[in-house]
Every structure is written in structure tokens, then in C-alpha cells.
């Protein structure tokens, strides 16, 4: 049976106070808190195992390398990828997308098209704008409906022989929309386009299977999955990863270096120049194991319950408007209260120990679409409770009273 108290015990930071109150942490979309097991693994690595990976012949280097590669295999299994070498370690989702966008420049011709959507995070917009700038490709945008869902029909009309890549988020960080990515992938593949999915908001909330999805590339970050910061994953099908040229040059990513001609290493090392975040990668395994042990059915059940309860309670507050009301939704509630700036809500909630995010959430096109300066955003995780939602709702009421 799922006991949230037992889960909370595994996250030491949740015991702390903020501004004299018990912390209510509702900014999980930005970054989740860390498991004790993750913290211990990082610490133990530096105490007992520290050495560089893939280089030395000595004992510690072998140990660090084995542990590092263990995480890669655990991730392969976690996301249902076919090959372990299709898992590339990066700094995070943003880094993963930039790796692809940077390499894709040389695969595009003038007039080729890349399709993204109106609900993307800036990190799934700007790299493609840069990619287009260099290659002469054209960026096309799938528009958003009022409820925060994408216009699938419009997507179909944007697809053509010119479409080389479709880059979409799995779950919107601002609106919580769960996009029907399988449908998008199928449609894109029909005309021969590749698909990259930004899974930053999805990987700790919904079950993933790369082979079932048949997605070409998928990116996510450890720090949004109870794991360490500075570690991310780019999954890519073997053939596309072989096609994309290296991102950064340096140690580890080469086969042979000479001043006449340097040849590159095979996957995954081709994309892993320099010393990676070894401690972080090794500790990421602890986070994946935590998620796998819980299972996505349990996770979905608890998080959906919290989402429904929080939505129902927040709507009881007069003047509240929720942005993002898609049918399939993740634990994200973006809202505004009539006549009140989201920043003011955020500042006052913080004084009451409730951490939420306010602003445009790095999705300015969405804010423009709804003609708002930003929203206040509650984003939930597995360790959150109904009681915390009650505290948050009371705090919002108090803030509203102070600001009205």
C-alpha cells in the first residue's frame, strides 16, 4: 500500500521549515527534491569510488566506469530502449536538445522545415531558431487551443515533404497538457520526418517505452526525477545518432586523433566529450530505482488524486482562472486570480512557507497566447500530500485577502 509519509521520510529536505512554517514544496516542475539515497550515493562516490571513467587501468577507474555504465543500462531498461549505446548522458534536457539542434544544422538544407508547437519551453524553441538561422530551414508552429491542447488538425496541415523534424514536449511545463505524442510521431513518420520529444516534465510521472512510441529522440533531466542536477539523457535511435555529427570535441569522443584527420568514437562516446558528471550519473540510478520500485500506476494514482483535489479546491476561490484544462493533464496547475499579479501571490505564499513558481515559466509564447504577464504555478510530485494542498489553499486565500 502506498504511504506518503513513508515516501516523505526518504526526502530529508521536506522536514525543514521555511519562514517559520513547515515547507510546502510545490515547485516540482522546476526541480524536485532529492532522495536520501541519491545524496548518499553522491557522497559515497566521492568518499570511496572517485576516479575518472573510461580511462584508467587502475582499480578505482574501473569501479567508477562500471557504476557509470550501470546507470546507462538501468536507463535503457527504464525507458524501453533497444540498445544501451542509444543512451547519451548530457547536462540536462536543454543540453540534449542543443546537442541535436546543433548537429541537425548540417543535415538541413535551405527551405527545409522544423515543426514545434506554441506550448514549448524556451529550451525547445530557441535551439531550433538557432538551427534555422544557420541552416536556412524554416520553423513552423502548431497552434494551441484555449484548453491548452495542441491543434492536431493544424499539425497535419503543416506536415509536408519539406518537414525534416518535429520537436514537441511530452508534457507542457506551464499548462500540464499531456500531448498525444504517439499520434504526432505516427503522423510525422508517414511523411518521413524525424521526431524529438522533450520529456523533461514526463519522465518521473508517466511510463515510457521508446520502442513502443517509435520516437526518434527523447530527452529528460535527472533533477526533475528526484535525482541530481547537471545530469540529463538524450535517447536516440542508433541510426539517427550515427547521422548527427559530434556536438563537442575533446577527450573520450575520439577514435584516433592526428593533425591530418581525426576519427570519432562510436556511440555513445561520440557525444560525451570531456569528463562527465560521474557522481551525478551514478546517483541518478538511485532515483530511477526509486521510481521503478514505486511503479507508474502508484505514481499516477497518487498524483492524479492530488491534481483533482487541488483543482477542485482552488476553483472554489472566487476569481480564480486555471490555464490548461486539457483532458489528459499532469500535476501542474497554472492559475491567476482576477485583479492580482501572480508575482504578488508568489511572494506572499513564500512568506507562508509555500513554494510555488510565478512568471512566464520560460514559455513566453503561451503567455502571449493567453494575453497574461504570467501565472502562479503549482506543480506536484509523489511526496506531496492532501494536507499540503489545504495549507496552500488557505495561504492563497490569505494572500488574496491581503492583496484585495
Amino acid at each position, binding site marked *: 500500500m502506498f504511504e506518503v509519509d513513508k515516501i516523505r521520510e526518504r526526502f530529508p529536505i521536506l522536514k525543514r521549515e521555511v519562514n517559520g512554517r513547515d515547507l510546502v514544496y510545490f515547485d516540482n516542475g522546476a526541480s524536485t527534491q532529492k532522495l536520501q539515497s541519491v545524496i548518499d550515493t553522491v557522497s559515497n562516490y566521492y568518499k570511496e569510488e572517485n576516479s575518472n571513467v573510461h580511462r584508467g587501468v587502475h582499480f578505482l577507474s574501473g569501479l567508477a566506469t562500471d557504476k557509470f555504465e550501470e546507470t546507462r543500462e538501468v536507463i535503457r531498461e527504464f525507458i524501453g530502449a533497444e540498445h544501451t549505446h542509444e543512451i547519451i548522458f548530457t547536462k540536462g534536457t536543454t543540453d540534449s536538445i542543443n546537442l541535436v539542434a546543433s548537429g541537425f544544422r548540417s543535415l538541413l538544407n535551405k527551405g527545409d522545415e522544423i515543426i514545434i508547437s506554441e506550448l514549448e519551453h524556451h529550451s525547445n524553441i530557441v535551439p531550433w531558431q538557432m538551427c534555422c538561422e544557420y541552416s536556412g530551414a524554416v520553423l513552423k508552429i502548431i497552434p494551441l487551443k484555449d484548453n491548452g491542447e495542441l491543434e492536431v488538425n493544424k499539425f497535419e496541415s503543416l506536415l509536408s515533404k519539406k518537414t525534416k523534424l518535429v520537436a514537441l514536449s511530452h508534457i507542457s511545463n506551464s499548462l500540464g497538457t499531456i500531448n498525444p505524442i504517439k499520434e504526432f510521431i505516427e503522423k510525422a513518420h508517414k511523411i518521413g520526418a524525424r521526431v524529438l520529444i522533450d520529456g523533461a516534465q514526463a519522465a518521473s510521472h508517466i511510463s515510457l517505452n521508446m520502442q513502443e512510441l517509435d520516437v526518434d529522440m527523447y530527452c529528460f533531466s535527472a533533477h526533475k526525477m528526484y535525482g541530481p542536477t547537471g545530469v540529463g539523457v538524450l535517447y536516440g535511435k542508433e541510426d539517427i545518432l550515427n547521422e548527427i555529427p559530434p556536438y563537442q570535441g575533446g577527450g573520450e569522443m575520439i577514435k584516433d586523433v592526428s593533425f591530418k584527420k581525426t576519427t570519432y568514437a562510436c556511440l555513445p562516446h561520440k557525444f560525451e566529450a570531456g569528463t562527465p558528471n560521474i557522481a551525478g550519473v551514478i546517483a541518478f540510478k538511485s532515483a530511477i530505482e526509486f521510481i521503478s520500485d514505486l511503479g507508474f500506476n502508484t505514481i499516477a494514482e497518487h498524483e492524479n488524486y492530488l491534481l483533482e483535489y487541488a483543482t477542485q479546491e482552488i476553483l472554489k476561490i472566487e476569481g480564480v482562472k486555471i490555464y490548461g484544462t486539457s483532458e489528459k493533464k499532469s500535476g501542474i496547475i497554472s492559475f491567476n486570480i482576477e485583479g492580482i*499579479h501572480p*508575482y*504578488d501571490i508568489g511572494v*506572499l505564499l513564500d512568506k507562508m512557507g509555500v513554494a510555488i513558481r510565478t512568471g512566464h515559466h520560460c514559455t513566453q509564447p503561451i503567455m502571449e497566447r493567453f494575453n497574461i*504577464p504570467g501565472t502562479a504555478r503549482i506543480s506536484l510530485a509523489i511526496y506531496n500530500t492532501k494536507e499540503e494542498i489545504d495549507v496552500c489553499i488557505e495561504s492563497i486565500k490569505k494572500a488574496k485577502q*491581503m492583496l484585495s
Partner: protein
Amino acid sequence: MQTIEEIQEEILEDFDMFEDWIQKYEYLIDLGKDLPAIDEKYKIEENLIKGCQSRVWLHAEENSGNIIFSADSDAIMTKGIVALLIRLLSGQSANDIAHADLDFINKIGLKEQLSATRANGLLSMIKQMKLYAIALDK
């Protein structure tokens, strides 16, 4: 006309009276509500201060050696802070504004308003007011 230092002292005394953060923030909210409206024609892109989570418009003009500020923000707390800055600096000489040592924010226990992201906004506001003073100094 009081000096900037004298007004800072006054503000510190005002804030000393409050017993908890709620009173303090309610006072800021009231200051925000009472701030005289900026002329709509100054609420333009060029007068926006960058680095704030909320939008802040700041206008400055010179009047016989003194700098008169008017401002607005779409967030009421920000507007409260702006109101404090205007109370301090508006009507002062350009030279005094440019050299003012504004340590009151720390002392009135609004330190969190200075933390990272929010600080950018507040510091940008102060910087912009000083730049206007220097620019308008004749």
C-alpha cells in the same frame, strides 16, 4: 526638503513599529495602492525596467536641479517598493541621488526582496533611478 538620509531614518522608524511580516507586507501593499498614478503616456516600452518579474515603468524629469520620478508596476508589492524609492529619491538633487547609499532595504527586513531573481529587479530600479539622475544633471 529632507535629505535622503533623513527619509531613510523615517522609513526605518515606520518599519520598526510592525510586529510581524504580515503588517509589514500589508503596509507595502498600501504604499503600492497609494502611489500616485504615472501619466499613461509614460507607460511605454522604453520606460520599462528590465530584470523584474513584474513590469515596472519609471519616468524621470528634471525640475530646477531636482529630479522628479514617477513610476508604476503591475504587481502591487513591487509598486510598494517603488513607492518607497520614490519617497526617498524623488525631488532630490541629481548629485544626491547619484551618490545615495540605499541600505534601508536590508534594514527594514525585506532582505528576501533582495534575493537573487527579485534582487535583479530592485537593483535595476535603483540603478535606473541613479542613471536618470546622472543623465538629467545639467
